[in-house]
């Protein structure tokens, strides 16, 4: 039996296109201090630090964890860097939780960040490699064909992605930390925004952001020292699959299905749509909401779009999705996964402010990365497991 673990502190920065008011050090420190403040703990209370971010080329700084160690109170303590591409913020939290669940540490500070303005992630993702042709750049060019595949396979109405984008962008207006805010956003504005990688429009796309997120995780004996309501970790799961193999289904990847099945089994969930109150999932392009609804087992295959269409995923729906405004509204890549996990924790702690889902008692946080080949997720709840 693993030790129980709970989130006792949550912190994040204001996410923005260019946080040139702070260095990378200042950025991570801002999130970490807020998490400690939220937990009412000091640096001396932390036993270990686990940090995550996406590829080093995104800032052009090799192994930034080395120079960030002292700013994060890591000197003299175990410090660990995690990397699993875009899912890294999620897997960093999972690794941190496992250190508590294994009984190794009482309190772990975990931090994830990206400062995209310091380099160019699009460039980093489209360097010329000798064994393939470089004709698409960045994530949009990679994922657009998969979205087209989903549309063909499911027969989803063509405006599904627009509806997701409007919903997430309206949710972002309620989140003081969100990067992109379009106060007048509506269906026509999204529909008329420029097509970038057909079928992905500009307003259906995530931004490039600077930002960080931090969590304080505590073992059961240490939970009481923090006054807020703990978000108990009910289950975590991670899965990966090879980038390239014949017959690989990138629209509905096996690794995601396996991770979800493992997660629900560990949490004792048999009907996720009924038993989970809200979900914050990794949707960098609007169409990934219906795709992941199916992959996560919230909807039968080919029917995820109906949840969007029927308003089930709206803030007042039966399964609110991306209450914070999601990756579409803030995308400091390395932190994006942890922000999903953090939003799930905020919801069950009752600390989500204007985007709080009434009566949220159990929430799912989800992240994916690479060419849809890394998945990490957790379920947190109000009840001690």
């Amino acid at each position: 039996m693993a030790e129980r673990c709970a989130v006792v502190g949550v912190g994040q920065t204001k996410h923005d296109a260019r946080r040139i008011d702070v260095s990378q050090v200042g950025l991570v420190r801002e999130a970490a201090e807020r998490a400690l403040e939220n937990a009412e703990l000091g640096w001396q209370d932390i036993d270990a630090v686990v940090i995550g971010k996406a590829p080093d080329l995104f800032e052009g700084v090799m192994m930034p964890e080395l120079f960030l160690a002292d700013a994060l109170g890591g000197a003299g303590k175990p410090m660990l860097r995690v990397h699993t591409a875009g899912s890294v913020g999620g897997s960093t939290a999972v690794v941190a939780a496992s250190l508590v669940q294994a009984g190794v540490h009482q309190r772990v500070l975990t931090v994830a960040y990206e400062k995209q303005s310091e380099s160019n992630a699009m460039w980093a993702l489209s360097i010329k490699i000798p064994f393939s042709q470089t004709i698409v750049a960045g994530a949009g060019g990679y994922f657009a064909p998969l979205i087209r595949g989903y549309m063909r396979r499911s027969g989803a109405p063509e405006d599904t992605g627009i509806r997701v984008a409007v919903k997430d962008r309206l949710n972002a207006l309620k989140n003081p930390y969100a990067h992109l805010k379009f106060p007048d956003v509506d269906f026509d504005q999204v529909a008329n925004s420029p097509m970038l990688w057909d079928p992905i429009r500009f307003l259906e796309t995530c931004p490039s952001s600077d930002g960080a997120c931090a969590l304080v995780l505590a073992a059961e004996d240490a939970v009481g020292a923090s006054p807020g309501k703990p978000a108990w970790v009910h289950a975590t799961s991670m899965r990966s699959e090879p980038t390239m193999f014949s017959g690989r289904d990138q629209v509905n990847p096996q690794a995601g299905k396996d991770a979800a099945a493992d997660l629900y089994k560990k949490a004792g969930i048999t009907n996720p749509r009924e038993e989970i109150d809200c979900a914050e999932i990794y949707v960098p392009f609007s169409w990934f909401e219906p795709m992941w609804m199916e992959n996560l087992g919230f909807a039968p295959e080919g029917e995820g779009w109906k949840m969007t269409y029927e308003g089930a995923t709206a803030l007042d729906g039966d399964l609110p999705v991306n209450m914070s405004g999601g990756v579409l509204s803030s995308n400091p890549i390395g932190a994006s996964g942890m922000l999903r996990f953090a939003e799930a924790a905020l919801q069950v702690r009752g600390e989500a402010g204007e985007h709080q889902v009434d009566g949220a008692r159990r929430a799912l946080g989800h992240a994916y990365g690479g060419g849809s080949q890394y998945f990490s997720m957790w379920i947190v709840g109000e009840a001690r497991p």
Partner: protein
Amino acid sequence: MSEEQKTVKAIDGPTRLEYRYSPGRASTRFLRGMEQKKILGQKCVGCGRVYVPPRGACARCGLPTEEEVEVQDTGTIVTFTIVRVPSQNIEIELPYCAASILLDGADIPFTALLRDVPVETVRLGMRVQGVWKPDAELGPSFDNIDHFTALDEPDVPFEKFQEHL
């Protein structure tokens, strides 16, 4: 001067990246084939699926791909995107079609440029053929197929290729 003006906000520090790739045995066979306008794949000893370009192993079965198989330069578009936004590293006139193409005889698609076809007319299941560079420009490179273009053939039904999305 105000405090705000005194703060140094950013300093440029350019980084250059050069990538030297050792192709290994399977890719060497493929690249030598490309020099002669031959597309060489490899068949998995377990599932019999043909990988192009070959990597020497099938990640589906965890088994080697030993038998060499020549595949055609004709194929089918399994999915695609129309790129309408410029990128720093890519100098192709906009808009253009990046297509995921399953070559005839292969069991895994790859992404390639489709040209000489109005982008509005690109469809899933469309038949295409590779257009090779002039013989004098051939080298051990994937880029020997300069681009793909449409064939005047009926579309392939979705069911035939949908597992390759």
